């Protein structure tokens, strides 16, 4: 039958796609439990590389640095990106709006090497003239990350604001709310999901970034991607496989947690609806 053929075709497509996506990850996980020191040679099951990993202070330091940069970056990027989005959508057509709007999305399309290089130049010039930053590391990487991730946040906020009917704000104003009240009572609460999404995106972008961080980092400041890259450059290593497996696990837990929270919220909403119908 036609439908039978089609479903077979669909099925094999899905299998192929899934295999393409997940076989490499699967291999990585398998090899992280390889007792042998030489990655592609199977030497029996072992968890010794996890032990090695946990004893490595270098790795812990880079994880801590990456997380610290990512969270500080996410907070500032959300703040600045939200302000930029608000200015672009809600303050009408001020002078230079088109220019501002184009400029804010430039980091989205700029090659990362160029962003990295130009920021490095900026930091060097600054040091020349005002003596700051005296050394590159946490500060410079964070600032660099904020400059590009706030552009992403601004885009998210812009699209959410554009979808949010302006008459809600007008209704609040009509009922006696002054501009600041409108912001705190109406605009920000309705923007909150967008801001959370923006924060998470900025956080991930920062955790992910290798190129820009490599440009603006200095001696002693090594983020997790930089560490992984520098080690693997010298050949595949089983302890890095273990580290990658842990990261995959963390991501998987994060995704499951998010799905569970969403499911619970849905249930809660249904319950509320039922209760209000009964009362």
């Amino acid at each position, binding site marked *: 039958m036609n439908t039978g053929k089609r479903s077979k075709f669909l099925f094999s497509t899905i299998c192929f796609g899934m295999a393409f996506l997940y076989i490499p990850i699967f291999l990585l996980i398998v090899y992280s439990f390889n007792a042998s020191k030489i990655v592609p040679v199977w030497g029996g099951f072992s968890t010794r590389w996890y032990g090695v990993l946990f004893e490595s202070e270098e790795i812990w330091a880079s994880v801590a640095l990456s997380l610290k940069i990512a969270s500080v970056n996410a907070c500032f990027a959300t703040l600045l990106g939200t302000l930029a989005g608000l200015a672009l959508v809600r303050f009408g057509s001020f002078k230079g709006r088109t220019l501002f709007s184009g400029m804010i999305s430039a980091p989205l399309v700029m090659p990362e090497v160029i962003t990295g290089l130009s920021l490095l130049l900026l930091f060097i010039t600054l040091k020349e003239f005002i003596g700051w930053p005296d050394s590159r590391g946490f500060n410079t990487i964070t600032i660099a990350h904020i400059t590009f991730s706030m552009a992403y946040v601004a885009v998210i906020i812009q699209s959410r604001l554009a979808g949010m009917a302006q*008459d809600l704000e007008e209704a609040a104003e009509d009922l006696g*709310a002054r501009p600041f009240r409108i912001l705190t009572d109406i605009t920000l*609460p309705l923007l909150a999901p967008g801001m959370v999404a923006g924060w998470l995106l900025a956080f991930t972008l920062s955790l992910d970034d290798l190129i820009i961080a490599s440009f603006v980092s200095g001696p002693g400041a090594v983020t997790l991607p930089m560490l992984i890259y520098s080690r693997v450059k010298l050949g595949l290593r089983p302890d890095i496989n273990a580290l990658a497996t842990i990261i995959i696990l963390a991501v998987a837990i994060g995704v499951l947690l998010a799905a569970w929270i969403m499911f619970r919220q849905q249930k809660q909403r249904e319950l*509320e609806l039922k209760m209000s119908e009964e009362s």
Partner: protein
Amino acid sequence: MSAIQNYEDRPWMDPEAEPFIKIQSVSKLFGDFVAVDSVDLEIYKGELFCLLGGSGCGKSTLLRMLAGFEMPSSGSIMIDGANMTDVPPYERPVNMMFQSYALFPHMTVEKNVAYGLKRDGIAADEIGKRVEEMLSMVELTQFRKRKPHQLSGGQQQRVALARSLIKQPKVLLLDEPLGALDKRLREQTQYELMALQDQLGITFVVVTHDQEEAMTLSTRIAVMDLGRFQQIGTPTEIYEFPNSRLVAKFIGNANMFEGRVTENSPDHVTVESHDPECQFYIDHGMSIQKGSKVWIALRPEKINISKEPPANGNANVIKGMVHDIGYLGGTSTYRVQIGDGRIVEITSPNQVRPKDGTPPIDWDQEVYLSWHASSSVVLNK
């Protein structure tokens, strides 16, 4: 008119009455585009005033200027004796019900309704009491804990109404208040709205594009087109005495004939039209030039249809052929083809029950259309 007048229901006729809202030569430009073109309007306390017009005629813009969301490009707006032209929305004694309702999606019904009072810094227990009263008035008490998205369209409309009434504004502005409801609910809500307005005595200014809605609701109507008022008057005035072809066609149906004034005396006017060949005799005088070009508007329900020619003379009568009949039960709509092929529409009540089911007037029958000498309206624009 008698010497003793009761102006209570018609404050606009009272020469002593002071208008509650006074709009003086207000214009609004968006760039080069003139959305509202130098309008003057006086609305009296307790009126239910309708701004009626097609889409894009500027009625919402005028309403938004009353609310303070748009600043007039020129002119002034006074409400209850105070100049409101430059007062921001949050300080005006008016509230608005939005076309989209604009309910705060993250607040419950109760919080939505309470919002205006909270902004005024009223004590919590006082707010609770007034919200309670308001919710019971619009019959939403059992929905107080719901979010707007958990309500039907009609319920949302009532929340929006309650929220805009809770501050007891001097004027309530309503932008297409019934536009989003289905037909049956709309008719029912019309009467509820009128009852509410009567009970609260608040001045309502309603924007609508629905002429039936405007006719049912309002004390007076302003018909708008291209940012200007075409006519301001009571529903009866606007329907029976339209001042232009535009108004006559916009409010209800009208058959329009073009002709020239052939006679103009103090007690009657005659107009002759050539296609169709017809004499119009109007039984009152008017200030109009003999020989000038005019249009005659005839409402479908003011035309008689009969098989025999009417007895009195040959003015106010046209011969035609029945082209189409729409039987609506209580009334029938006849579409009659006259002289040059034009169609005239007539509605006539079905007062007599046809004996054997065949209607008295049938398709392709020759008929005479006639009307009373006071029924035709002479228009010169």
